[in-house]
């Protein structure tokens, strides 16, 4: 893992597809953000709880543990975890897939279908969320 500069905001990208992961890294770093990576839900939980990123970009379909289960764990295990902003970045469609029908319960800030968005758009949304006023969370 690369060294992090304290002033940069940290984004955890949880994504199992290498190409997608790399593209996100490039785009986010270009925008001046520090990028943490995890390739499945299990390592995702570990990195999140350890590094406390400022935002999590979360894919759903992953081996070993999917995004939904990971988010559940993050939300439960940690006070920080309850409030960390999460952008779901998946190729599943929200309204139809049983797996993610109740993703809303876990309070993501936004839901994006990768194929429908430019990578630039994703970065914009990330920055928007990071700079938004903090909503008090229980």
């Amino acid at each position, binding site marked *: 893992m690369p060294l992090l500069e304290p002033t940069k905001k940290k984004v955890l990208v949880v994504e199992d597809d290498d*190409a997608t992961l790399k593209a996100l890294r490039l785009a986010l770093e270009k925008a001046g953000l520090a990028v943490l990576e995890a390739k499945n839900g299990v390592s995702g939980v570990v990195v999140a709880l350890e590094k406390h990123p400022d935002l999590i970009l979360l894919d759903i379909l992953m081996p070993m543990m999917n995004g939904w289960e990971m988010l559940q764990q993050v939300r439960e295990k940690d006070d920080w975890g309850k409030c960390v902003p999460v952008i779901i970045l998946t190729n599943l469609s929200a309204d*139809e897939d049983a797996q993610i029908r109740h993703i809303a319960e876990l309070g993501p800030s936004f839901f994006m279908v990768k194929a429908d968005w430019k*990578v630039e758009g994703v970065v914009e949304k990330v920055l928007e969320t990071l700079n938004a006023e903090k909503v008090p969370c229980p």
Partner: protein
Amino acid sequence: MQLVKKQRILLLATVLMILLTATFFTWKQVKSSTEGTALYRFEQYASRDVANVQSALNFYISALYSAQGLYEVYPPASQAEFSNYFKRLIRPDRYPGILAMVFVEKAGGQYVIKYVEPLVGNESAVGVDLYALADRRIAIEGARDTGQITATPKVLLFASGKNRPGTVLFVPLYKAGASLETTEQRRSAIIGELDVPIVVQNLFDHVLAETRDQNIALEVFDGTDMTEDHLYYDSDETKYPLGAYTSRFTLIKQLKVADRVWTLKFYALPEFKLSLFAELAPMLTLIIGTLFSLLIAFVIYALTTARDKAILIAKDITKELESVNKSLLSNDKELSRKNTIINEQLQSLLESKKAMLNLLQDLRGEKEKLADEKTKAENLTNDLKKFKLALDNASDQVVITDGEGIVVYANAAVEKITGYNPEEALGKKAGVLWKVPMPIEYYKNLWHTIKEQKKTFIGEIQNRRKNGQLYTALISISPVLDNSGNVPYFVGIERDITREKEIDQAKSEFISLASHQMRTPLTAISWYTEMLLDGDAGKLSVKQENYFNEIYTAGRQINKIIKSFLHILRLEAGTVSVNPIALDVADMSRTVVKESKLDIEKKHLRVTERYQESLPTVHIDQELVRVVLQNLVTNAIKYTREKGEIGISMDQVKRGATIDGKTAEGNSLVISVHDTGIGIAAGDRDKIFDKFFRSESAKLLDPNGNGLGLYMARKMMDIVGGKIWFESEEGRGATFYVLLPVDEKNLV
């Protein structure tokens, strides 16, 4: 008079004898008559010929005497003059047989040939001394001494390449004015002679043409000796040489020729006959006569015997008749008595017969009726058997209930599908055994349809088998109406469609999975292309930028396709979310048209939009309407040729109004999209809204279409309670109509 056999035979013999004798004499007569006629005919011809020959010869002789006279008065002085004379005088066609005319001049003791006509071919004869030839000399001397024409005996003359038998006539020529009374005077007055060779054959051939046809032959002899040496002419020498044939008719005549005598022998050839009938007459007479005699004899015989027989028979019959007559007379009385009795009985019989016939008639009628009934019953039984068999073997479950839904019949398939056998189902309320509770509205709807609306209800239902297994069924329940409109029975048919559902489910899941999986690499393509275009990997040339743009566009296209697949799945699963908002449909339509501007301009299409004034806003899902409009407009553009026309119009219609045969159930908005494109073929009309259907002509214009547009459009209309249909004429264009309900209560 009865004849004894002996007498009969005697009579027969006598008759026969007489007749045969008569025949014999007749035959003899006929024969001699025939003979006589033949002989007569023969003699006729022969005599005629003799006369002809004689006159021909006389003709020649007189011509020669004329020549003699002329010669003495005007002797020719040269060969040329001689030729002239005799060319005209003696012509071979007039005098057949005459070979030439020769002038022989007395020169001392010689008679030398001086002139010859014709000279050609006979030049060698000039100067020849004829006196040296014996037979010539005798004739010359004879003519000189007598002053008459003389003839040589038979000589051979060279003519037409052969030696032919002939004679030479000599005509004495004297000094003009000399006295010719005595032989001495003649001898001293002679100056020469005309020598005339004659080929006898030619002469006779000419004269005897007709005789030959009659099968009568002629032999001509010099002198009286009828031998070969003296033979001048044999008309039939090839078939019957001299002496070869002795004829039944022969005639010998003698002819005077100058100072000689010729003998003519005529004889009938074997072919000489009278007419066929005449020849055969005697024979025929004999045969016919004999036959006739025999016939008469036979007839007489037969008659006499017949007559005898007849007489005998007649005698017998007479005897019998007499005895019969006696008995008849005695029976007569008896009969008349019996007759009366019979008549009475006959009457009563006739009456009973009438009665019976009537009865029979009635019975027959009854029998026919019965037969009819029986056939009807049989047919019915057969039909019922067939139906029962069909039902029992049907794979679908058939349940018949009474008006309240109590089962009165269940077929064998009930057990196969539900696990409960028909007996268990009888008497119970339909479906209760295997039912899985559905929402109460479902049952309400079902009963309403079949009992109140009296229509067939079709729907899907979940059931549970006896072994606890759940299955999906497609049910169809129909009411059976009697004549007064009551429903005494319901017929329910259920089909186990679990398998189909599973397959469908699997398909949908597969498409869903595939679509999602495709999105991951698609994301990579899009994002990296995006970053390339942003210059993240270095500055791009114009070309590179263009190429990457193409890739990006293609990537967007793939995403669009995936989205539509997923959309359909959602529609089918019924999980599409509908968010009705107040929508200005006209506005949306304008946007859709604007989005397609490029394609419209590329094909030089003329687009007219007409939106009715003050159209109401419709509460409807925006996305839904957009998709439908986009679909119709894109189709219109795609399937219309260059320079075609597209027309879009929108109107409000009131409840109950009819548009193109469809009635609006409430206030509605009607959108029509019209084009002058390829239209829809009659055969494709029913399939146009089918999933994945593409017509042949559509495939030609756009091979890449997925056949889902109209399918989706219809599904969406089903969701919002709208309608979509079309009118089209193949090759002329199509108009698609969309009816959207305006009223609130039609919202989902």
